[in-house]
């Protein structure tokens, strides 16, 4: 269950970064100029357990920021966020993959960060490796993996994380068709199991297939909310203006 009330988040993007003393010092004499970028603007949202929600919108509309706030990576400027249940974020493929470590070592690290104990990882290890299809490459350093292999591995690990809420941000952008099929199977499985899912995507077909409700974000606000088809249509309208 997720409850977001009046969430606002602003980023101050300075026109020149000041992280050395010299720049800071010289900068004292010049008034710093910022751009105030309002990523989220008084946004309220409620997600009931078991809902599969699609989030669509142009780049920069606030989708990723919303997910990052929900997972605790960013803090809101104002408003409240209430989350009941364990969250597993898929905010980018291979989160926390250390390129100099082998896949095996990364599975343990990544799995632990996602909330699994060593014992659980041991039990699910083979299942993860088989799903990702990297049996022969398990002791290879991840830096030598193709982006597709990394995607599959990351997904395989996250799939085993027993969370109640999954935040999925564009993870299907990378990956060949067989991988995409596998992901879809996982989504269907999650849907059956009644997991709560927030799905950010630019793919209207997927949104329509899986999402019971879709939210259209624009400039940090909810522009539309409702059934997939209608909201997607509205999205198209906005884009063609």
């Amino acid at each position, binding site marked *: 269950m997720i409850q977001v009330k009046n969430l606002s988040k602003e*980023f101050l993007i300075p026109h020149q970064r000041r992280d050395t003393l010299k720049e800071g010092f010289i900068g004292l004499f010049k008034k710093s100029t910022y751009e105030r970028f309002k990523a989220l603007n008084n946004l309220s949202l409620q997600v009931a357990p078991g809902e599969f929600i699609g989030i669509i919108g142009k780049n920069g509309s606030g989708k990723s920021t919303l997910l990052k706030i929900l997972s605790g990576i960013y803090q809101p400027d104002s408003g409240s966020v209430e989350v009941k249940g364990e969250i597993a*974020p898929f905010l980018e493929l291979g*989160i*926390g993959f250390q390129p100099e470590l082998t896949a095996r*070592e990364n599975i*343990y*690290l990544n799995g*632990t960060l996602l909330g699994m104990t*060593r014992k659980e990882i041991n039990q699910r290890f083979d299942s993860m490796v088989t799903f990702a299809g990297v049996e022969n490459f398990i002791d290879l350093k991840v830096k030598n993996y193709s982006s597709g292999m990394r995607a599959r591995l990351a997904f395989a690990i996250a799939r085993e994380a027993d969370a109640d809420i999954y935040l999925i941000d564009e993870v299907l952008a990378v990956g060949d068709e067989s991988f995409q099929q596998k992901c879809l199977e996982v989504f269907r499985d999650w849907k059956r199991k009644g997991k709560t899912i927030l799905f950010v995507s630019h793919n209207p077909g997927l949104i329509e297939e899986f999402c019971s409700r879709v939210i259209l974000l624009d400039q940090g606000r909810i522009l539309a909310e409702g059934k997939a088809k209608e909201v997607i249509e509205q999205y198209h309208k906005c884009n063609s203006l």
Partner: protein
Amino acid sequence: MTKKKNHNWHIIRELVISEFKLRYQNSYLGYFWTLVKPLLLFGVIYLVFSVFMQSPVENYAIYLLLGVLVWNFFTEATLIGMNTFINKRDLVTKIYFSRAALIIASTISSLITLLLNFIIFLVFMAAARIMPGPEALFFLLYLAEMYFIATGVTFILASLYIHFRDLQHIWEILLQIGFWLTPIVYPMTIVPTIYHRYIYLNPLARIIEYARDIFIRHHIPSLYLNVVLLFMTTVIFFSGYFIFKTQEKKIAENL
């Protein structure tokens, strides 16, 4: 989210394991370098002060080595720890877990190095035929205090380093100065008494001196001194943690 509390220890453990693998896998001698560095430093200082200058400090070898190991731990823990958020920026910006766990994992890695170095120290002691008495167990307390001081300082450094990249240079210089203002290579006796109180403002100076008391003179420092040290450690650790907490929320955004 209560599962998280216990899980942080699992995370710390995995991070420490990964840290070790990352630090040493591409070099041939690997971990050997970390152990050897303070010993080489010790060797050359010993050569200069004991052999060349014939320092009258008794048991100078043990005296010096103890100081070098403690200082080296502090230096390594803070310098490497300071960079933690920058080095692990992928972890910090893509997934949420206790930021403190990252720092703790880093300082624990340095602590493990110290412990391994310490074994070598004990070998030295055996060779010099100085057997540590039961009071040596007190050293465990100082070990813990060393750890909390280093971790507290690292909390502050790592949080501020994100905003001020100059901090790395400043800290390196402060460490250099600190090395000489702490009685590591010289005995406190050569320091004029009026300066003693300033030297002892440095908790590491106290730890090193008390450790020498224990191992060389077989003497436990007074209760008063121990309480003062404990107090200093507590203040440093909690203020470090507090400062870290005020910066914690902004870490991901500022990386």
